[in-house]
């Protein structure tokens, strides 16, 4: 049993597409924000896969680095979006 770069890209495409689906399908905009981490996760998986299966030279860590940055950026964007949405309460 083995996995190739194409397999990694399929999984990444699935995550990104489900993230886009979650973002557009939700009527509640605050809930739609939950699609952002999935889209970024799909991109991160693709980057890590490219780093893993890169052909030339030694270890390529740029994909790892981008996955780390995308994870942090997803938390930041989600926090910003939910902060703008505001706190639930009597108005």
């Amino acid at each position, binding site marked *: 049993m083995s996995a190739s770069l194409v397999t990694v890209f399929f999984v990444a495409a699935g995550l990104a597409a489900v993230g*886009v689906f*979650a973002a557009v399908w939700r009527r509640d905009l605050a809930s739609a924000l939950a*699609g952002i*981490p999935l889209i970024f996760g799909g991109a991160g998986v693709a980057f890590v896969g490219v780093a893993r299966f890169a052909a030339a030279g030694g270890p390529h860590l740029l994909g790892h680095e981008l996955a780390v940055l995308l994870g942090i950026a997803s938390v930041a964007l989600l926090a910003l979006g939910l902060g703008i949405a505001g706190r639930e309460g009597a108005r």
Partner: protein
Amino acid sequence: MDSLHAIGFYVSSGVSVIGALGVALIPARGLRGGALAVAGVGIAGIYLSLGAGFAAAVALICYLACATLVAGPRYRSVEGVIRPLWRQLGAVAAGALLVLLGYSAFRGDFARAKAVSEAFGASDVGRLLFAHDAFATEAIAALVLASLAGAAAAWRARERAR
């Protein structure tokens, strides 16, 4: 990639996609946050099976934080004004995106290479982040700062206006 890593990759992929579908389809906030946590565990597992241990640890923390935010009961629901037809078209476009990305991955002509990175890689990734690509790291740090400050300011302004 050996069999153990391949099994870990496929299991983690299934977990992440199931969690992602839960995020898209589950209506309750708490369960949706739980599904996002499951997706995060799956994504971290994918990173780990691909030899990116440090990225897996960071992703796990970040996705658990995202899940906590999404599951929180205190943020306000904001109803969109987009008509259902556009939402349905967006869903169809998401499916088309999946087909397009899958087709491009399937038709892509990639070199067959042996996997090279098996280490945790924290020091190497840290060196890249803070020495080689410090500008990108600073940009993300600025984004985090702006997000936290903006979120806090928006939150407090709404509280004061109430």
